[in-house]
């Protein structure tokens, strides 16, 4: 079962490869901008509740290959549920950067009018949602898939979570139910080696979560190298399977948490901290495409410039948006007033 999904078989077009790189650059540019803005006014010292972006902040730098490789296959109408670390997936799924930034800055212009925050993004347009509770984004993805199938459209749902989530009960219940009902859903595990400070080896009884697919009779595959094209290929097969009505798949990607678990995390538990950035997937892919003549240095510069323009526009827009009116703090508890 675990070999049913094989690695890249079909060649990607030049345009596809450029899109993958462009997507990853856009994501990284966004995350770097949030990093900058987040820390800009936390001092003196570091006070989590201070600044224009208060609260916990989980950034996804290093995990761009998952988002880019996955979302290249998804349509606007497909569902996607993510976790506490959602930006890369939200962006790749097509969420408006202004809505995302507005929400992160807690503004009325934000996706959730500042009510949700960066762990609670609900976008009816891109059918994106996330949850700050580990593994609890899985079950709602089943419901999206269920509704899509009922509607008779060809949409699918994807649920993404970290390797830490694969030890939570909701993972198991969701995979069994999806397999049982052959729901058009794909489960993706981002294995970044860490659940906060707990190493994968201290949380997971098997070396590959793909092995867990056997427990549900579905295909499982692990991508070992954080390579966007490998992700693209594996997801492509799973998407085809799901759209064809053949049921769910499980894909684990061995990716990389380039920064701390959340901002402010000193990562004292991480031994090889100095060399982490050597695994950065973006320079690697950039180099690969340069070597292959798929992009030029000028192309890359243009991509970076374009990303920067978009991201800074979103951040500016957020900063210039009104903060929510405190008198409206109780608005939206119910659709129908109490």
């Amino acid at each position, binding site marked *: 079962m675990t070999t049913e999904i094989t690695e890249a078989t079909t060649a990607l077009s030049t345009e596809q490869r450029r899109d993958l790189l462009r997507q990853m650059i856009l994501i990284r540019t966004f995350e770097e901008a949030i990093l900058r803005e987040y820390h800009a006014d936390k001092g003196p010292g570091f006070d989590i509740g201070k600044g224009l972006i208060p609260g916990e902040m989980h950034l996804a730098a290093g995990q761009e290959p998952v988002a880019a490789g996955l979302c290249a296959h998804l349509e606007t109408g497909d569902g996607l549920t993510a976790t506490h670390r959602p930006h890369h997936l939200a962006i790749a799924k097509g969420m408006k950067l202004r809505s995302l930034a507005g929400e992160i800055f807690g503004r009325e212009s934000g996706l959730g009018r500042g009510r949700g925050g960066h762990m*609670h993004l609900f976008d009816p347009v891109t059918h994106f949602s996330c*949850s700050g509770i580990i593994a609890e984004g899985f*079950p709602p*993805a089943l*419901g999206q*898939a269920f509704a899509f199938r009922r509607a008779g459209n060809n949409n699918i749902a994807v649920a993404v979570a970290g390797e830490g989530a694969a030890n939570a009960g*909701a993972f198991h*219940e969701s995979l069994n139910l999806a397999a049982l009902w052959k729901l058009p859903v794909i489960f993706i595990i981002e294995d970044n080696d860490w659940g906060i400070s707990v190493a994968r080896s201290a949380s997971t009884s098997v070396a590959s979560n793909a092995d867990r697919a056997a427990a549900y009779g579905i295909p499982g595959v692990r991508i070992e190298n954080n390579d966007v094209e490998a992700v693209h290929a594996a997801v492509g097969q799973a998407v085809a399977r799901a759209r064809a009505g053949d049921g769910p798949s499980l894909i684990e990607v061995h990716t990389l948490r380039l920064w701390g678990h959340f901002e402010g995390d000193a990562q004292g538990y991480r031994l090889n901290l100095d060399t982490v950035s050597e695994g950065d997937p973006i320079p690697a892919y950039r180099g690969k495409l340069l070597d292959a003549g798929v992009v030029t240095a000028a192309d890359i510069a243009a991509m970076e410039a374009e990303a920067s323009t978009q991201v800074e526009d979103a951040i500016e827009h957020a900063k210039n948006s009104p903060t929510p009116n405190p008198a409206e703090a109780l608005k939206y*508890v119910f659709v129908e007033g109490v």
Partner: protein
Amino acid sequence: MSISTENTTPGQASLPIEPLPGTRRLNTAKAIQEAIGSAMVQDDSVFVMGEDVGSYGGIFSSTTGLLDTFGPDRIIDTPISESAFIGLGIGAAVEGMRPIVELMFVDFFGVCMDQIYNHMAKIHYESGGNVRVPMVLMTAVGGGYSDGAQHSQALWGTFAHLPGMKVVVPSNPYDAKGLMTAAIRSDDPVVYMFHKGVMGLAWMAKNKRSIGAVPEEDYEVPLGRAKVVREGTDVSIVTLSLSVHHSLDVAKQLASEGIGVEVLDLRSLVPLDREAIIATAAKTGRVVVVDEDYQSFGLSGEIAATISEHDPQLLKHFSRVCMPDTPIPYAQELEYAVLPTAARIEAAIRKAVAE
């Protein structure tokens, strides 16, 4: 002391008029089935999901017969995976369906509460009103038949304490149908808690009001409106669910002694009809809360706070006949010592009017 008859006067003028005696009578389980069935006929997006809701018809008969009418694509048995299937309901609701999901016993909430209170109840708010979760979570509550500490709880206080979900608790067939119809049509998530003892089940002691007149046509009992189910001027019982019937029994009995007991059936905890609570408190000046849920940090306290906030001098008496803060015992002698029985209610009322 004035005495009134057991009546059907609505607590609020805007409530639908109840059917006249002589019309068709159903038990509460059938009333619920009928509300669900009618909604399913009218709206393709409504479906039912849960353990044993299909061929079994629901352990407490909430879905009997629906499988035959609507088939297994819309009346769906699930594995014992409450987090997965309740979450599935949430995702389907987010995408525009109207799921009715049964949690077999409310006592099992601990295996799936995250989906309920962190997701079902919060998504609408977190989305800034952009995403709705029009879902009904239906669940059986209550004890009295020796089902022990893990299968006898009421727990409505637990759900009502957590914001973002409406919580309704019918006590009779008429309300059960109307509240279910309103719950299904609501764009908000609604927790619908039926007491096993009001369902009118063949295999469980029935109270006489578990069968009652129910109109065939659809109607809504609005969420958040309490109802004065008996008028009286000496003391008010504020209660809900099965305890309404014990309270009515006691009220009737005490009427012969000249004690006028008003009985308020809350019907909803969220929204809570605070006006109706204050109105009855103001009328009698004596309030006894009868609540099968645990006494402390729950409904009975909220009644006291509601009145105290309004006017801390309003009452001459306040007391509670609740489940004390104990796991619910198995042995009948013990369980009936902690349940809010008619005997305990009667004693509380006598004390209330004596003070």
